[in-house]
């Protein structure tokens, strides 16, 4: 029994926590771009094993469920309907067998997550079910879903047969896990930030950039008044990470996202704080991106706090879901 892909949406991929540990072989991590949203989608359907979910970009897919399934949508609030019935995000919904789930646009944000109880029974590749589009690595060979694909469901983790959609009466408050306010993102100093000329250093933290439409899972391309170094830098390839802000010769920065390559040769002018990476991943083309300087201590403290809050919330959601069975 599977979920059939009737229409794939703009760019819908399987993603989980990614593929750490292989960077020395040139293999990046990939994984969900908005990690907390992915975790909370799984928690809402009672998944505890890091199950892969669908990462949906801007325009959602249409899916047919061959059997009854518990689903949850998190991340960017997406227009979702099962038949004629609108479905709320950030809550669990039980769908009867034969349901057609139509996911359309998002009011705000760029990426929604669809988790299914039990996850999708596709083979892991190098320990992960994430699709790495650049490396063409993953359960579907590192590609987005296409019409006609079938996503097998775990036969042991289904739900009882029902005859109409059942929306759970409680959900998760998307705040503070989805950034509705479009505030500035905390930026750590990059290795070569002091090589920017004075005006560019000022501009990096003052000017509102716009997210370019050429952005993808690898990088958020930022458009603004160009930044420049005081003198050209000859660099050899070095490690880059999700969040690394690179400055190519065009002077328009690129902030790397979940599918960051393992090495890069452009100057690194900043590092987006880990706590703000999901927020950056939710900006859509045309959205404003502004940076505010932070320190390593401050960034670590925020990341710990955020991690603890998320862990507690995931536990609460799992416990409450379990108690209703």
């Amino acid at each position, binding site marked *: 029994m599977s979920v059939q892909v009737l229409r794939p949406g703009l760019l819908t991929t399987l993603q989980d926590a990614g593929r*750490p*540990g*292989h*960077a*020395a*072989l*040139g*293999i990046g991590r990939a994984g969900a771009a908005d990690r907390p949203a992915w975790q909370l989608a799984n928690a809402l359907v009672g998944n505890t094993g890091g199950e892969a979910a669908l990462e949906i970009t801007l325009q959602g897919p249409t899916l047919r469920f061959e059997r009854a399934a518990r689903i949850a949508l998190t991340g960017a609030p997406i227009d979702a309907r099962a038949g004629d019935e609108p479905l709320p995000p950030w809550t669990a919904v039980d769908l009867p067998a034969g349901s057609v789930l139509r996911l359309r646009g998002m009011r705000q944000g760029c990426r929604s997550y669809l988790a299914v109880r039990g996850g999708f029974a596709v083979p892991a*590749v*190098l320990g992960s079910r994430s699709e790495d589009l*650049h*490396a*063409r*690595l993953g359960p579907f060979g590192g590609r987005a879903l296409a019409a006609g694909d079938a996503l097998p469901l775990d036969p042991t983790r289904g739900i009882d047969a029902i005859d109409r959609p059942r929306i759970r009466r409680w959900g998760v408050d998307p705040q503070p896990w989805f950034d509705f306010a479009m505030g500035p993102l905390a930026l*750590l100093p990059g*290795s070569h930030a002091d090589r920017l000329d004075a005006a560019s250093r000022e501009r990096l933290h003052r000017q509102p950039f716009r997210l370019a439409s050429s952005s993808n899972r690898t990088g958020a391309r930022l458009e603004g008044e160009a930044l420049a170094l005081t003198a050209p830098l000859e660099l*050899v*390839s*070095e*490690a880059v*990470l999700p*969040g*690394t802000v690179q400055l190519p010769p065009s002077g328009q920065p690129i902030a790397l996202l979940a599918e960051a*390559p*393992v*090495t890069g040769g452009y100057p*690194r002018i900043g*590092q987006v*704080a*880990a706590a703000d990476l999901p927020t950056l991943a939710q900006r859509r083309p045309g959205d404003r991106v502004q940076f505010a300087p932070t320190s*390593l*201590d401050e*960034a*670590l403290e925020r*990341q*710990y706090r955020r*991690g603890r809050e998320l862990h507690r919330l995931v536990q609460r959601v799992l416990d409450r879901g379990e108690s209703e069975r």
Partner: protein
Amino acid sequence: MAPIRCEPLAEDALLLHVGEGIAPDTSDRVLAATAVLARALPGVECVPAYASVLLRFDAEAWRTPDGPAPHQAVREAAMAALASPDAASPVPREVTVPVCYGGDAGPDLDEVARLTGLGADEVVARHAAGHYRVAMLGFAPGFPYLLGLDPVLAVPRRADPRTRVPAGSVAIGGAQTGIYPDTLPGGWQLIGRTPLRLFDPAADEPTALRPGDRVRFAPIDAARFDALRTEAWR
């Protein structure tokens, strides 16, 4: 030798600058340090590049209530390990890579000959005579950046990069040579092609080459290429 410089890259990452530039002795030091650190720091991902090693760690796991911040703790553990390495560097593996040079397998061989002022045969002879080492993997899974190219063979990248370079293509880009593990976009000059499969995600060891490997190229003809390719990509 200059002292190793540590730079925090992110909440969970430190970059150890071991040296500068692209050079065999720098690469040797990077790979020796990587081996020591990988043994001494379990749970820390150690990733070598030309002149630096990335350490990626779980900041939460390295945090202690009254101790130093995670970066400081990882840095101290790394420096202690490097000050008293627990074992000699691993003996590098020797890998022979068969290459069919020129023709359809190496469409830029004549261009490289023109750019270097050598005959195509001389380009092949010099490329195949080299003793190479894998400094790092990057760009794509299993793509080896090889040190040891005869400086005479250094040629600029193509002005017009290809959108599809065939898997196995052996190429020169500037002073470096490398092998495309998969069909990928690329701007390096293609002088030949190996039938070997450099990346197989289903294999126990997904990449044919690892950092530190010593590599020699062995010229083969088109018939041998076809036979070996059928075997390797079965």
